[in-house]
């Protein structure tokens, strides 16, 4: 194995700096005691974090986002696991079409999904309700779950299932006692990836949220277009911290590089 030369390492350091710069700056500025977006030079203060928790809009939106992400990730697992079983275990007419349909939200720009949902909801008169917001998020995150569960199913040794069937276990028992535990890492990874993607979603949500259901990214977007003060940095720092925790959990359960790089 060849080592990287000094030029390569210098290039690498520049790229890493570029990638980390905006995130590091946010985390530093969040601790400023000043009223403007400046680096904390005189001292470190938690006043902007306190301001976030005292700001009712941000707190409401945060809980909206947490509930939205939890419910849509869970329901999308409930949809994707049986769908993945059907796609990977059976050959039936329309199988490729179904697979493409389930993965299609990955190649449709979120902007287009957003305006399409807006039109549908306006026509059937359900705009702005939380349940329909959940439905739109399920559409957006299901492809991620499906891909991971399909990958877990394709790497599965079927002999354990066959042994269970031979020993007299029914289809459901076999799934519950044998298959489900074996694909559990795929399901957990998929759920977390779905949670993060739902929690971060902006472009589509901006079209389908109502004042009562505004999610945290949409709230942050609206706040950033109106005023810029260090509170925005504090919210962003909290989001970075939350994402970092989720990343660590993902890395432990499934291997983050496998999830992000994997199965293509």
């Amino acid at each position, binding site marked *: *194995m*060849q080592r990287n030369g000094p030029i*390569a390492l210098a290039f*690498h350091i520049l790229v*890493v700096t*570029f*990638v980390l*710069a*905006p*995130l590091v*700056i*946010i985390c530093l*500025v969040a601790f400023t005691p000043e009223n403007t*977006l400046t*680096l904390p030079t005189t001292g470190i203060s938690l006043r902007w974090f306190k301001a976030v928790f005292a700001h009712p809009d941000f707190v409401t939106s945060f809980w909206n986002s947490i509930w939205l992400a939890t419910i849509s990730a869970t329901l999308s697992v409930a*949809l994707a696991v*049986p*769908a993945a079983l*059907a796609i990977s*275990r*059976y050959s*039936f007419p329309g199988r490729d079409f*179904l697979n493409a*349909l*389930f993965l*299609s939200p990955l*190649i*449709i*720009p*979120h*902007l*287009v999904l957003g*305006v*399409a*949902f*807006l*039109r*549908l909801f306006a026509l059937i008169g359900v705009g702005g309700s939380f349940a329909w917001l959940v*439905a739109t998020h399920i*559409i957006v995150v299901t492809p991620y779950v499906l891909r991971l569960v399909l990958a877990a199913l394709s790497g599965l040794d079927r002999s354990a299932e066959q042994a269970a069937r031979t020993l007299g276990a029914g289809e459901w028992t076999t799934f519950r006692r044998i298959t489900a535990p074996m694909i559990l890492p795929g399901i957990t990874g998929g759920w977390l990836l779905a949670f993060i993607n739902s929690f*971060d979603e*902006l*472009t589509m949500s*901006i*079209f389908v949220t109502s004042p009562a259901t505004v999610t945290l990214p949409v709230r*942050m*977007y609206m706040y*950033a*277009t109106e005023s810029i003060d260090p509170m925005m*940095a504090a919210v*962003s720092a909290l*989001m*970075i911290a939350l994402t970092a925790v*989720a*990343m660590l959990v993902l890395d432990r359960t499934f291997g*983050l*590089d496998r999830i*992000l*790089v994997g199965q*293509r």
Partner: protein
Amino acid sequence: MIRRSPFTFAPWLLAGPGALFFFGLVILPLCLTVILSFHAYDHSKGIQDTFTLSHYAAVVTDEYYLSIFLRTLRISALTTLICAAIGVPEAYILSRMRDPWRSVFLLVIIGPLLVSVVVRAFGWSMLLGSQGILNQALHLLGLPSAKILYTETAIVIALVHVMLPFMVIPVWTALQKLDPMVEAAAWTLGASRFTALRRIVMPQVSLGVLSGSLIVFGLSASAFAVPALLGGRRLKMAATLVYDEYLQELNWPLGAAIAIIVLVANLCIMLAYNRMIEVRARRTLG
């Protein structure tokens, strides 16, 4: 292993609910939006029931819309080029690192993918703003301040930051499949490092670069948060234009027409991508 059994309802029972759900919430709304884009619009009376091609005609003839589409193409192309120029060498450098550094830096490069794009765009607006960190640093060095925020440069910088993982991932995957001994063999046989890179490594990763470029281009062309937060009111791209037509002008049919154009362009790019993956699969199968 796929069961070739006589006809069974099992797959339909398993996939049915999801299929219905996706049918109702993906295909149906998209069809409704296509129909909407042909509806006439009146500024005082709203959406009319008469059908017209005028929105599409307006978009392809009006200077204003054309300039926004041109800007979108220009910014996306530039972003793609810069992503390739940074992402390809970076993936190569990563692939030659040893663990644990390799895993650590791979996570550093692709991890930001999971951080909300609003957060990243906000970070860049702090760095590039007129009172931002970059200008404060320039000021300390006694240099004149630079106006970057609310220019196309700012949009490109932030887009490159957001899209870089999508370039690194396919190139990295291609490099993983490359046996490092082949490159070493080229050196032993007298090839210079540059020749080995050009003749051995590049042909292997070129498909990775191409697929990365298509993804980056497609995502950049429909990006919303970055141009909205770093381009300001004046510098619009296709996505921010759709947003304004829908939520400010309230001209939904025109917004729908632009959205459909963005969708069709994206689907074309993704079909090209799938075709490429198929060609590669066929080639590796022999």
